[in-house]
């Protein structure tokens, strides 16, 4: 009978743990509260099913435990019951899947007015690139990477000259504006992950992947790498700062452009060599 008690403890304890334990998602900072809602729906449906099944097993074990004079019931099949259970399951599945697919559709449909910026992963650090005044990111290719041009911008592309490159510093994004994050990697797989934004995406050398979101509150958040990328994986960190739009533009205007960096970089390197 101990097993009955344990099963009751598991059913009740799991629900209580869910409700009262201090560990739950971090407060959201993006427009993807829909994802949180879908998780909540899924918690409800799965929670009810889990508790029901565990309690049912507990009841069976209690009620039908072995007694010498007792005989099990002989009933190989019950088509009606099996049909009903299948139907109810299918309804539950649809109730979870439908909102999920609707939100996924939003997730993969980038709004037209989203402004793009680029995140580049590299063992084991993050770099960021914003389009300059022309609003366009210049073309880049891994083949063009050199010490002075770590992101591999193609010098012939005029759009790239005014791009702003941030290395070894925080990423900044404007509050309340949809942004499209373009993801590149120069060496291995990485994954740009900010828990508060509820979104992440792998970065693959040779490809440009993306996702989008709208920051909904100001603050500083951790950037983590979520794809095992070698020894430094756990230390591949950065910060993203959500700031009001005006502040964002003021900050961006002060950053040196790719063209400016190209002029100073050789000098710096020559200095370092001495």
């Amino acid at each position, binding site marked *: 009978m101990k097993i009955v008690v344990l099963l009751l403890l598991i059913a009740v304890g*799991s629900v209580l743990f869910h409700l009262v334990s201090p560990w739950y998602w971090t407060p959201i900072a993006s427009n993807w509260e829909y994802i949180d809602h879908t998780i909540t729906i899924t918690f409800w449906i799965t929670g009810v099913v889990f508790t029901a099944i565990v309690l049912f097993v507990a009841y069976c*074990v209690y009620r039908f435990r072995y007694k010498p004079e007792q005989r099990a019931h002989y009933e190989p099949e019950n088509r009606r019951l099996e049909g009903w259970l299948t139907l109810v399951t299918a309804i539950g599945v649809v109730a979870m899947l439908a909102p999920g697919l609707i939100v996924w559709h939003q997730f993969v449909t980038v709004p037209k007015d989203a402004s793009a910026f680029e995140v580049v992963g590299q063992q084991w650090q993050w770099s960021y690139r914003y389009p300059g005044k022309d609003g366009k990111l210049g073309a880049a290719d891994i083949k063009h990477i050199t010490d002075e041009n770590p992101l591999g911008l193609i010098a012939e592309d005029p759009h790239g000259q005014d791009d702003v490159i941030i290395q070894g510093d925080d990423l900044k994004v404007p509050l309340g504006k949809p942004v499209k994050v373009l993801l590149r990697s120069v060496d291995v797989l990485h994954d740009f992950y900010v828990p508060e934004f509820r979104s992440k995406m792998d970065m693959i050398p040779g490809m440009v992947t993306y996702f989008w979101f709208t920051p909904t509150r100001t603050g500083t958040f951790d950037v983590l790498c979520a794809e095992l990328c070698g020894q430094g994986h756990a230390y591949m960190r950065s910060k993203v700062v959500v700031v009001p739009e005006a502040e964002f533009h003021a900050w961006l205007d002060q950053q040196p452009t790719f063209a400016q960096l190209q002029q100073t970089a050789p000098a710096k390197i020559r200095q370092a060599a001495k």
Partner: protein
Amino acid sequence: MVDIPRGPTPPQIIPDTVPPDYMPPPAEVKEVELYHAHSWITKYVFCQDAKIIALQYAGTALAIGFVALVLSWLMRLQLGFPGLLAFIDVNVYYQFITIHGMVMVIYLITAIFLGGFGNYLIPLMLGARDMAFPYLNMLSYWVYLLAVLMLVASFFAPGGPTGAGWTLYPPQAILSGTPGGQQSGILLMLISLILFVAGFTMGGLNYVVTVLQGRTRGMTLMRMPLTVWGIFTATVMALLAFPALFVACVMMLFDRLLGTSFFMPSLVEMGQHLKYGGGSPILFQHLFWFFGHPEVYIVALPAFGIVSDLISTHARKNIFGYRMMVWAIIAIGALSFVVWAHHMYVSGMNPAFGFFFAVTTLIIAIPTAIKVYNWVLTLWRGNIHLTIPMLFAIGFIVTFVNGGLTGLFLGNVVVDVPLSDTMFVVAHFHMVMGVAPILVIFGAIYHWYPKITGRMMNEAMGQVHFWVTFAGAYLIFFPMHYLGLLGVPRRYYEMGETAFVPPSAHTLNEFITVMALIVGAAQILFVFNLLWSLRYGRDAGPNPWQATTLEWQTPQTPPGHGNWGKELPAVYRWAYDYSVPGAPEDFIPQNQPPQRAATQASLQPAPGE
């Protein structure tokens, strides 16, 4: 039916019910030309008897599984008490994760279910003398052993084993930033996997042919115990899925050794332009998961089958909805080949695939749910003996339902976005494909040990083992989901400073580590019990659980070479005639002719009538 003169007639749904005037045909197969061992070496070492091969497989799998268990202790110590063990640096930690994951999934669980239980149970449950190709079967084990030794060798190779994670994703898997990437670690891993697949294929062909061709008279497909259905379907799946892993390994080996670029785009590693170019890392992921997802069900389906038989036998009740169970197994097996990319929702593949794979993934939930309903409905109005196998079966239901339900989060593409690559995933797959199948393996060992050795395993030690393992594993992995919900990523050597992880989460980590140590220790008791009972276990007799299936009806216990005496058994009924109304006992063996049941029933009134 004529064989049961009184009591309610069992509904007319048992497939192939025997006509009343049925007489068994004469034994067609008197004595197969079996290889007869003459020396100790051919009897116990290079042995062609499926039963010995089964034990060799199981013993090797458990031994290497213990290594994986110890690795999990060490990893948990690092996570709960960072820096406590100085020798676990970043590299060592990633090597431990990789080998732990790979061993648990492939070299332990897959090997023990198919090579261990498959070899032991298929011929016995189907009334065959041995596997169809005994020599190939023997070879299968030795190639598997070689694969295991290769894996072990990587611990002693320069640079140690690979630390690429059990998914071995390129490009990092073969580059210098990953432990073993530019040394021999990754090479030994790939070669070991290639050998494993080759060895498995030899065994797998055997299991399939034996199920299709080796069944005894009267053993129709729809009379096979669900254990055989589960192992059979899993084997067919494995034969279709492992080739994807095989080619992926070969291609990666070429990339690493010959400089091809199947999976390698042009890239700059640590400021160095490498010679690779034009390959696709995502191609590897598709190949890996085309194997990897079916792999989940390759370990799940044998567990499904075995647990059905454990529940039915120990609840003294026929499995509820046998035909539905068979179809569910087949449906799950087929569907699991069209869901692989649910592991790749955030891999950067075309996001439109997300719609398709989310739908297929959630559809699989339906046949899976049916199986769960049928297990619990088998308990309903049963006569439940709380034996050790039954306890483990109950533990399986709880952990499997829990892990299956969290799968609905991860399968639902958009919900997976925040959760993928976090501890939520780690908790989910441990629950559903780690703990749940392992509980079945334990239950199955307690259940069949008496047949294998002729002795019962010690009950008191079994109780302790069950309680600590089941409750402990639940306490390890249930709270772990919430770490993932917080956002704690997986495969992190240490969490370090973050704004979103509260200090209390660290207390939870310590708790999980302590539980992991306790659960691990309980496994030592289990191994002790295995050995102790060999000598001191209670005598079991031929059929201690009063089970219906053929392996319990062998003339000798443990079964001798060739399994059966002069004649193979003939089968007259399905595997689940438990508590048939009017029958004298609460079980009727599959090989009991209808007439005999009738006479006996008319001589002595059934109890409770």
